[in-house]
């Protein structure tokens, strides 16, 4: 069964989605933890400062609720950036949807036959414990360029899946080229 894709992503005919990869939850956790800590500020204020200030109880209650609402909105903004930031590996290409912030969204595509080498990077204690890391994809061309997929869970699995697909494409290359020759040209 074909997976539902974002509205602006169109697959080619007979193109199949192999993997949909999102950043590891620990990356999202680290992005959110700072906001949660900021969310504690009004409670510290109410506990340590309010006893010395004679304001009506409704004043700190109002500002605390307003602060928490803003924190809640910020948490969902961070979640949106995490949730919509995905890589889609199909049998023909790798689609990178980079949700940088709410008003900045980059979509890039790399054809799978252009992949030359894939390097897995797992740096740090948390990356090793939780099993996430980066994939550095080197592409073929006159000038070698790199395509970086950051903070994905189980990067070795993704690397193997892409390499297996490349092998399949290479094995059937002759067949694909034959089919290409058989296809009627546009002038016919």
């Amino acid at each position, binding site marked *: 069964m074909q997976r539902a894709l974002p509205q602006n992503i169109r697959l080619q005919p007979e193109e199949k989605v192999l993997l949909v990869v999102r950043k590891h939850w620990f990356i999202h956790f680290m992005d959110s933890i700072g906001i949660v800590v900021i969310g504690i500020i009004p409670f510290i204020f109410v506990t340590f400062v309010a006893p010395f200030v004679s304001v009506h109880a409704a*004043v700190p209650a*109002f500002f605390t609720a*307003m602060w928490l609402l803003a924190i809640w*909105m910020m948490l969902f903004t961070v979640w949106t950036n995490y949730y*919509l930031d995905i890589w889609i590996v199909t049998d023909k290409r790798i689609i990178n949807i980079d949700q940088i912030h*709410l008003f900045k969204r980059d979509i890039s595509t790399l054809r799978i036959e252009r992949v030359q080498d894939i390097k897995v990077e797992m740096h740090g204690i948390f990356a090793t414990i939780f099993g996430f890391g980066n994939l550095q994809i080197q592409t073929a061309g006159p000038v070698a360029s790199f395509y970086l997929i950051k903070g994905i869970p189980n990067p070795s699995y993704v690397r193997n899946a892409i390499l297996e697909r490349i092998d399949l494409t290479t094995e059937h290359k002759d067949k694909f080229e034959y089919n290409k020759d058989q296809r009627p040209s546009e002038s016919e």
Partner: protein
Amino acid sequence: MDIHTGIAVAQASSAVTGLNSSVWMAIFLAMILFFIVYSAVLIYHWFTFSMNKRTTIMATLAYIVISAVFIFSMLVSVVTLSTL
């Protein structure tokens, strides 16, 4: 806390509590307006770019329900301050 600081804090506290009810309502309405616009942007992103309808609906429900609790708390505080 010395006596002068104590007096200054007391005056500031009194000034905050004694703000006109329309000022509290204006702050509240400004926040609500900002919340509505920002939430519309967030929810548009979820429904346009998400790959999973179920997750989108769950996220929208959680976002709205918890936000409503905070907005209700703000409203109760504003009404209380307005009736002082």
